């Protein structure tokens, strides 16, 4: 029973988190740019206090969806509810959201304090209240020493903290992040990622976070929505997405290095096997129950880290000999390229293994680690 994008809406509503009134509810959302349909009939519920990550490659419509929630784009159809209120046609400032952008989007001529308080002053919030909120945000984000500085005198990481602060002082329930860490270097990105997670634990706000970086998605999310071509492919917890990808796209997108795929046929009978070239892989113990219904052409997917070597491989139900073509040592582990059934595949080995190019090793795996995808629909079998 695979969940495809068609019956996702029901599944989303079924999860216990969203049975309570959702914080953000998107119903049958359409969005067109002229004749280009970017989002079509999209449904999504985000629970109160949930950290939802929208993950997908560039151009799949993540920012467009986030901008619709924020009210920065006029939707072409459908409805958006925030905290039970229909905000489909409300101004962004009236929706109870705060937003953080990839380019920080700070007001460059104002000090940090000015950046934090500009919106509040404009909303005629009393001075003492503004001062209180700015002080609180500055304390949470540890930017108190920077308050009198201009953004140009800050580092990228500090600027993004200020941008988060600007969302924080709005005192809202829903935070929207559009690739907030993409402009930072790797080290800062890791630091600020932890910071955002800490912030979420501390504040308990609903957060919707757009990224194309699967590490960010896996580490931050309560649930991940994987998008492709304006559709949500799978909406589930990170572990679920990793272990039970609903289709070949999701399987290949999540995991680094990505999953290996072999093209072949499923043969059912006394023993179920997957045939690819001259390789026959027994499927006894396959983790999903669709085998009986779909004999025929299929893809077999196996993650690099699930391919065993050495004694473990000898003991596995499927094993074979393979010649190592390329070795990529990465410190903590070593990536090895070889061939299986005519396909180039990757194997993740221990970083201490002393394999060399040209060696012949035994590789193997268990059927419960394997995912099979229908060749025509690419959905999981």
């Amino acid at each position, binding site marked *: 029973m695979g969940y495809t994008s068609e019956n996702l809406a029901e599944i989303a509503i079924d999860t216990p988190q969203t049975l309570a009134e959702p914080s953000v509810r998107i119903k049958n959302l359409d969005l067109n740019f002229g004749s280009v349909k970017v989002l079509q009939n999209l449904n999504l519920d985000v629970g109160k206090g949930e950290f939802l990550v929208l993950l997908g490659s560039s151009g799949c419509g993540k920012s467009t969806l986030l901008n619709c929630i924020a*009210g*920065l784009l006029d939707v072409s159809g459908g409805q958006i509810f925030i905290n039970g209120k229909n905000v489909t046609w409300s101004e962004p400032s*009236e929706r109870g959201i705060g937003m953080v952008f990839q380019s920080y*989007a700070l007001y460059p*001529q104002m000090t940090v304090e000015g950046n934090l308080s*500009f*919106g509040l002053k404009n909303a005629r919030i009393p001075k003492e209240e503004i001062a209180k909120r700015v002080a609180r945000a500055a304390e949470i984000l540890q930017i108190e020493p920077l308050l009198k500085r201009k953004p140009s005198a800050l580092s990228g990481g500090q600027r993004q903290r200020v*941008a988060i602060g*600007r969302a924080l002082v709005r005192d809202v329930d829903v935070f929207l992040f559009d690739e907030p860490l993409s402009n930072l270097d790797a080290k800062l990105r890791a630091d600020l990622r932890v910071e955002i997670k800490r912030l979420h634990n501390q504040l308990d706000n609903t957060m919707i976070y757009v990224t194309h970086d699967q590490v960010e998605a896996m580490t931050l999310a309560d649930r991940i929505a994987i998008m492709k071509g304006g559709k949500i492919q799978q909406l589930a917890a990170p572990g679920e997405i990793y272990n039970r990808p609903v289709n070949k796209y999701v399987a290949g997108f999540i995991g680094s290095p990505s999953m290996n795929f072999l093209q072949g046929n499923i043969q059912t009978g006394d023993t179920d096997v997957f045939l690819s070239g001259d390789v026959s892989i027994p499927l006894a113990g396959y983790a999903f129950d669709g085998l009986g219904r779909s004999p025929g052409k299929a893809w077999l997917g196996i993650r690099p880290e699930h391919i065993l070597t050495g004694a473990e491989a000898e003991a596995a139900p499927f094993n074979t000999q393979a010649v190592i073509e390329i070795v990529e040592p990465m410190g903590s582990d070593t990536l090895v390229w070889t061939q299986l059934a005519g396909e180039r595949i990757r194997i993740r080995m221990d970083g201490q293994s002393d394999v060399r190019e040209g060696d012949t090793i035994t590789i193997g795996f268990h059927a419960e680690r394997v995912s099979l995808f229908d060749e025509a629909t690419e959905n999981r079998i």
Partner: protein
Amino acid sequence: MAIAEIQGQSTEDVRPPVRLFRNLNAKIASIPMIMTAVFVFIGCTVWTIVHSFTKSRLLPKLDFVGLDQYERLWGTRRWLVSIENLAIYGICSLVLSLVIGFTLAALLDRKIRFENTFRTILLYPFALSFIVTGLVWQWILNPDFGIQSVVRGWGWESFTFDPLYNPDIVIFGILIAGIWQGSGFIMVVMLAGLRGIDEEIWKAARVDGIPTWKTYIFVVIPMMRPVFVTALVLITSGIVKVYDLVVAQTSGGPGIASEVPAKYVYDKMFQAQNLGQGFAASTMMLLSVVIILIPWAYLEFGGKKRG
């Protein structure tokens, strides 16, 4: 002290390159331009200033008469009118060009349809020379053929609109032509500046609930400071060039009502055969430019070192 230590250390290891020889090729290549600047600009300027203290008439002669030429200059009504006209034209043209140019650019930037068409139409006047612009507007403002006769033709017999023939407002007739010609270009410069503003700044302001006009005034315009400086330089050069427009539209008339300093200089030097007077007038023009430029340069460049 710390600096001395560091320098002392580094000389032991590697000798820092001599500053004069850094980017040597570029420096050699720029020598002709530097020479031109020194000899042509500075040399000619000094020569002009020196001769403004002489009683040169048809030919320059080093026959010094002290401040006589200046006394005569400031006693001439035509010069005083010229200065007044330039001041009115300059201030109005500066303010109106900036306001109109920015407003048009902001309107175009709101992603309207047919943007390219509008931009071309508005930019077109800039492709014309001042002489053509002057003549076109001379016709439009001519009471017998232009706006006045058209409106009278509709039946409003008492309507009068003849700025080029009314000494009190003739400078505004010239101003209209100048603005018409220059605003399109300023608009394009401003539009380029507006397009350089990150889209996400606008989004952030909307999420903050800042109205569009406030976003322009408090966020966007301050970000566009370099663009405004460029526009300012362009407009100022247009103000100095107003000579052609005056010649084409009114030749300084009616009477001397639309004279400008550049025309005074030209007439004195090449028609009245009074070089000394022309040099004195041009030295005064240079002086006023310097008086405007120095505080600006101080703010622009002196400020940077401090800040």
